[in-house]
């Protein structure tokens, strides 16, 4: 199929006139999703979808259109819409498509035939077994909200009339379970997951145990009082914060006056133990990719080194506007024009074990889940506050569960207040990895 997709992309770009540039992004996905509930298949979804996005640049004006189909008569219509749309855009001297920049792609093994080679009935069994296994982990597990197996094989290709050609094929699968735990009339919830490129990489016991643990450990939780204190973020939580920090380091945010790090290159913006790297060429990241959304090779970008801000992420447009070069950081779907963003960020791990880090804290909270991060963070001003759940840390030991409180600070202050990075590093189903982080001071708002 990959060759077909690139042929479709090339066909569309071959229709370009001499005074215009054309880019075509073509994708095709195949997915299976099985949900089990109370020992039955609740739903089985088998689906294929395709899409194409076409970008036209003419006289510095950019137009775009997309369609969720690859039928040939639709391709012509999409191109004609994109051309028409270009005529209404403002001329912008920095508009233009990517051109080959000589950077070689790192070769990544992101497709495994495991997803294609197992039968649908085996996939059904995974979802049913996961439910059964999770129910058996603890007698306080009162029900399973959903137990799922999903997999997807995604192929994509991009071609431009400026000489870009790239295609990729990747596979992914996951187990996901949501549990309910009940004791003395109180209900708590938890989730667990396992992801991989191929079903044999999935760890069903881990998914079941994590879900059970997350739900049961919150039973009997209370609301803490409001105070400022030391907070430890577990990897699941720190990975979500890294996504937000990463979003402020896009050159698009900087060039459009929306980044709190504008004019701060070369300055100390974080604690000296912070080194933040965006590296989509790292095969351990589930979002690893050989090329970015404009067809350029991805590369390892060091954003913050020992607390010092080193660079911003660029796509082709931001690079031209800033008289710089693309960092291979264009992100997009077939239905959108390229933005700029992180693809696989992580912190350089520290030297100490998470257990040792907690042992050194007299009074604090270990945060194990956050909610409302998107409504509670303003990436322009840097203010944030988010709902949280976790465990009290008393005299170096984990103690009672806490819920219905928020943690708040500013992104600027929190980066400086990181006093320890754990030696753990966990790649998660998002464009970031988590490490245990100790933050010297955050405001906890509770009772």
């Amino acid at each position, binding site marked *: 199929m990959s060759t077909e997709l690139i042929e479709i992309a090339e066909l569309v770009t071959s229709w370009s006139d001499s005074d215009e540039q054309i880019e075509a992004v073509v994708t095709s996905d195949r997915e299976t999703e099985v949900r089990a509930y109370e020992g039955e298949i609740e739903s089985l979804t*088998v689906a294929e979808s395709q899409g194409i996005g076409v970008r036209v640049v003419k006289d510095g004006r950019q137009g775009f259109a997309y369609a969720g*189909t690859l039928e040939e008569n639709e391709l012509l219509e999409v191109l004609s819409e994109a051309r028409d*749309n270009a005529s209404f855009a403002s001329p912008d001297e920095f508009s233009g498509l990517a051109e080959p920049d000589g950077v070689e792609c790192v070769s990544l093994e992101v497709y495994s035939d495991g997803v294609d080679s197992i039968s649908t009935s085996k996939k059904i069994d995974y979802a049913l077994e996961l439910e059964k296994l999770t129910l058996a982990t603890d007698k306080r597990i009162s029900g399973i909200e959903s137990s799922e197996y999903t997999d997807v094989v995604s192929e994509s290709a991009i071609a431009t009339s400026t000489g870009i050609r790239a295609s990729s094929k990747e596979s992914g699968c996951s187990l996901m379970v949501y549990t309910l735990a009940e004791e003395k009339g109180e209900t708590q919830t938890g989730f667990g997951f396992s992801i991989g490129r191929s079903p044999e990489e999935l760890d069903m016991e881990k998914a079941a145990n994590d879900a059970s643990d997350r739900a049961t450990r919150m039973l009997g939780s209370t609301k803490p009082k409001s105070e400022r204190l030391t907070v430890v973020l577990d990897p699941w939580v720190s990975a979500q914060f890294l996504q937000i920090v990463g979003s402020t380091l896009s050159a698009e945010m900087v060039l459009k006056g929306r980044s709190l790090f504008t004019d701060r290159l070369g300055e100390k913006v974080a604690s000296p133990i912070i080194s933040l790297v965006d590296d989509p060429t790292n095969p351990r990241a589930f979002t690893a990719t050989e090329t970015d959304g404009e067809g350029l090779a991805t590369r390892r970008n060091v954003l913050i080194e020992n607390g010092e801000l080193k660079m911003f992420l660029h796509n082709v447009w931001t690079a031209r506007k800033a008289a710089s070069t693309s960092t291979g950081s264009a992100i997009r779907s077939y239905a959108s024009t390229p933005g700029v963003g992180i693809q696989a960020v992580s912190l350089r791990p520290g030297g100490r074990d998470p257990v040792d880090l907690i042992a050194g804290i007299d009074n604090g909270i270990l945060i194990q889940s956050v909610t409302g991060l998107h409504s*509670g963070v303003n990436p322009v001003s840097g203010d944030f506050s988010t*709902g949280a759940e976790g465990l009290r840390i008393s005299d170096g030991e984990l103690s009672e569960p806490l819920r219905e409180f928020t943690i708040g600070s500013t992104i600027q202050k929190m980066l400086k207040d990181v006093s320890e990075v754990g030696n753990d590093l966990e790649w998660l189903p998002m464009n970031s990895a988590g490490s245990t982080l100790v933050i010297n001071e955050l*405001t906890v708002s509770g009772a």
Partner: protein
Amino acid sequence: MTEIQIVSSDLLGEVLSSAMKSGGSFAEIFVEDRRSTSAVLDDGLVEELNNGRDRGAGIRVVSGETTGFAHTADLSAAGLHKAAEAASSAARSNSESFVEIDLSNEIIPNISEIEILPKEVQKSAKVALLKSADESVRGAGLPITQVAARYGDSHRVLQIANSEGLLTGDRQIRSSFSVSCVAAGDAGMQTGRESVGQTVGFELFEDIDVNEVARKAAERAVTKLDSVPAPSGEMPVVVGPGGGGVLFHEACGHGLEADLIEKSASVFAGKQGELVAAPDVTLVDDGTMVGEWGRFAIDDEGNPASKNVLIKDGVLTDYMWDWQRARKHGRVSSGNGRRQSYRHLPMVRMTNTFLEGGNEDPQEIIEDTEYGIYVAQLGGGQVNTATGDFVFGMTEAYLIENGKLAAPIRDGNLIGNGPQVLLDIDAIAGDFAMGSPGTCGKDGQGVPVGDGTPTLRVKRLTVGGTAT
């Protein structure tokens, strides 16, 4: 109503017959043809116009408690039959049977009247709105450093047929406009946003002035330049008119969805007929509200939209239902079966959710509050329906000191527990207003929803600020 024919009724009937062949008890085909336009102006430039088209069909086959689902962008007879076969493969019955589906009785619902179809409006007119909004803010002498404006419209035609003989369709047209501004001052940058959206055509812009939308966004950003850190801890929270919809959406709306009730994943399970809120709380979900963002003629299972009273005078009267949960409970759907697109299975979703107005005077509610916060605009929110804990963001809020509005406060979240908050509502004013158009996310699917409230006060909520 030729407009709602995407696939002929003969072909729909044949596809349903083939979907039922392997012994399902119910089959449905959902056909959708959606065109959308968006135009974005940012940093003074019209960056792009984007046109999209998504067309396809989703087919589900139910057998016992199992649903098989497949979707396809190929609307030919061959494409639809292939999807029907895939969907029916989950129905594990051994008996082959032929079921004739009679689709001769097409139901024409109360489709919204549209004055000006967006597709018939020149793109230059859409772009002109963006430029006008941008120029009006930049020319106003405010400390605004950045303006982004977005225009959007969508034209969604759908056709639904099922094995019970239902054949119906709808045409849903939505138009929206939003502006985001950045203001810069000595203490850094602040943002302000305002958005409008209705289930109407381009006539939206006869009723609303985009320059006014831009002015509101700019004022929000400028006001916050003088903001102080939000307080931290429990205190009274007054929510302004139109602002509180998100609060109810999260505090109890999701918890009243029958799919979550059925799995005991809601704190409101088993509470029907009980007092769950303060006695003057009446909460309604109404998909029929003409023009509102969550309005439609039929839901995405072909059932007509309806007005459903969820809480009446503090008593939980009913949940919201889709076809599947309603069937199980031997009742009819409440018209709340919705899906993001033909690529998704329907589930129970809200439409336009609102709190009915009370009798109090909004000004007196503030005057009666010694210390607390006043939230004029809420951001998004999130809820854990099983515990009832929910958060929502505030994007325009002020301190209340000695019964008067005082300094603006910085952005942040509030956190509370749904059942407790419903009981803690101690004042409801008569100044009802609908809020901003929203997109409600559930299980990975986003659908347009509306909400509204009058001014109200919750006597105790936890404000997640940093000031102590």
